[in-house]
């Protein structure tokens, strides 16, 4: 790990590490261990302490239609956010990479929504699509579409996807643009000399060379859709109508805080912890590979 000179001191390194380690242990390790313990126990209703129940909490979850529905909703949601978000960002980045003048300006004009809090993005999009006064439903109505995401589950899901894509677009754009810059011009020119048009050049040369960036963004966007969109959903739909936008993190919050069902909430947390850990491991494997080549 190292090639730099080191100091000799028996106490100082521990003192320097203490704040970080203390916070890590108190607010990360300890709660996570607690979540896992709670996931395997049952709170006795009469205050008799915790009862170890093996996998009963998990079993209940998998037999619970509401939970499985939330799993499906989360998968559809993250699929929509990822595919739409990466597609639009890649299109814009490919366009900005055409040696145009003012690329820096476009970068600024495209990246700023990333700085908007997901919760605020939810409010802004909710206002724009407000069934009573919103500007978009007004125009949709003249096209014969009746928009009301407060009672129509499909429309609510679409709206949540749109606003999440909007929020994350700047991030994806920056990484795609950096990836495109890294592709040698000579490769693209060679393809052009061989007579490939711009579309063919893109799919035959550029896109395959971008795959490390695409893969990285895929993981980041899945994590974003799974976790960071809590505020967006809370501000926009509160999981409704009739649970149609209740993604897994939102359900943990509802079950843990609103319904005080700690065992179930902890089991749900544990499942998500395993999921994030798996994604992280995958990402690491990929980063290691990128370092080698």
């Amino acid at each position: 790990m190292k090639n730099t000179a080191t100091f000799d001191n028996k106490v100082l390194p521990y003192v320097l590490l203490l704040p970080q380690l203390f916070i890590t242990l108190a607010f990360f390790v300890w709660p996570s261990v607690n979540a896992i313990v709670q996931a395997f126990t049952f709170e006795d209703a009469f205050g008799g302490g915790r009862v170890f129940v093996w996998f009963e909490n998990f079993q209940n979850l998998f037999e619970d239609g509401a939970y499985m529905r939330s799993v499906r909703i989360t998968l559809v949601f993250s699929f929509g956010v990822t595919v739409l978000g990466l597609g639009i960002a890649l299109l814009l980045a490919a366009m900005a990479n055409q040696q145009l003048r003012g690329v820096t300006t476009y970068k600024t004009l495209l990246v700023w929504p990333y700085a908007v809090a997901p919760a605020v993005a939810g409010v802004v999009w909710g206002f724009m699509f407000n069934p009573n006064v919103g500007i978009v439903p007004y125009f949709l109505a003249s096209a014969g579409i009746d928009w009301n995401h407060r009672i129509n589950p499909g429309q609510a899901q679409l709206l949540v996807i749109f606003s999440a894509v909007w929020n994350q677009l700047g991030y994806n754009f920056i990484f795609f643009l950096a990836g495109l810059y890294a592709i040698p011009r000579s490769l693209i020119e060679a393809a052009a000399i061989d007579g490939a048009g711009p579309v063919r050049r893109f799919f035959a040369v550029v896109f395959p060379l971008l795959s490390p960036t695409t893969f990285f963004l895929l993981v980041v966007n899945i994590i974003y859709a799974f976790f960071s969109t809590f505020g967006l959903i809370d501000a926009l739909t509160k999981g409704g109508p009739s649970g149609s936008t209740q993604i897994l993190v939102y359900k943990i919050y509802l079950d843990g805080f609103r319904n005080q069902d700690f065992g179930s909430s902890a089991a749900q947390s544990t499942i998500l912890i395993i999921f994030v850990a798996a994604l992280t491991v995958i990402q690491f494997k990929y980063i290691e590979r990128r370092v080698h080549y």
Partner: protein
Amino acid sequence: MVGENRWYRYVAYATLIVGVLVIAFPVWITFVGSTHTTQRMLQAPVPIWPGTEFFRNYYIVLFEGFGQSSRTPMMQMLFNSLVVALGICIGKIAVSIIAAFAIVYFTFRFRMTAFWVIFLTLMLPVEVRIVPTYQVVANFGMLNSYSGMIIPLIASATATFMFRQFFMTVPGELAEAAKIDGATPMQFFWHIVLPMSRTTIAALFVIQFIYGWNQYLWPLLVTTSEDYYTIVMTVARQANELDGMIRWNLIMSVAMLAMIPPVLVVVFMQKQFVRGLVDADK
């Protein structure tokens, strides 16, 4: 270059301009909404050009406050947001730079263990383990306090890792020379390592400020007193108040206030922002 064509350029420009306009549209509508009267905002369709109530609306929101249950002026919320955002971002940088310094410049038992504990466990987003973390914070008596809103969020694997990577690119001769000159480790840290880390600190500052300012779930859980509400929480609360007349013009003013600081930071510190994003995910 070969294969270039005027028409591709036109298509590229057109696509980018459409993209920029579509992306700006929601915020334009928000801004326009914040410049009209409440009555005007209750008639569909809402206006698409600014009105005359800009100063009045922002004055009410900032200094008088509005809402069903509360009338705390938004100055208080902006102040809370600033404290929380700066607290999180300075805290993260401070805690991480000394931890990385310890890991890179000292040989001690458990060095790798410490590194991996920090690194692996911080991968867990707060959203995953909200209930148990809340219980810990409640046990420490940190509900309804700035420290409760800040401290649980200031450990940072990202920042520790970024500082570690940076320190490892610093030539070993520097530390060697400092040792020969009789500098203590902390003198080496203050006079050499810290000044050299400027660019890394600036990049981290930008991304962590945005992270801190935009926190939503955590402040929502640990505060019940309006004195500690952040501006981001307040926007969502006001927009979801169901009873009574919804004062969209004022809600949109609050939304603008919640967006402007982090957006300005990104726009004016774009170079540091991009560096922070790209380095943070290496």
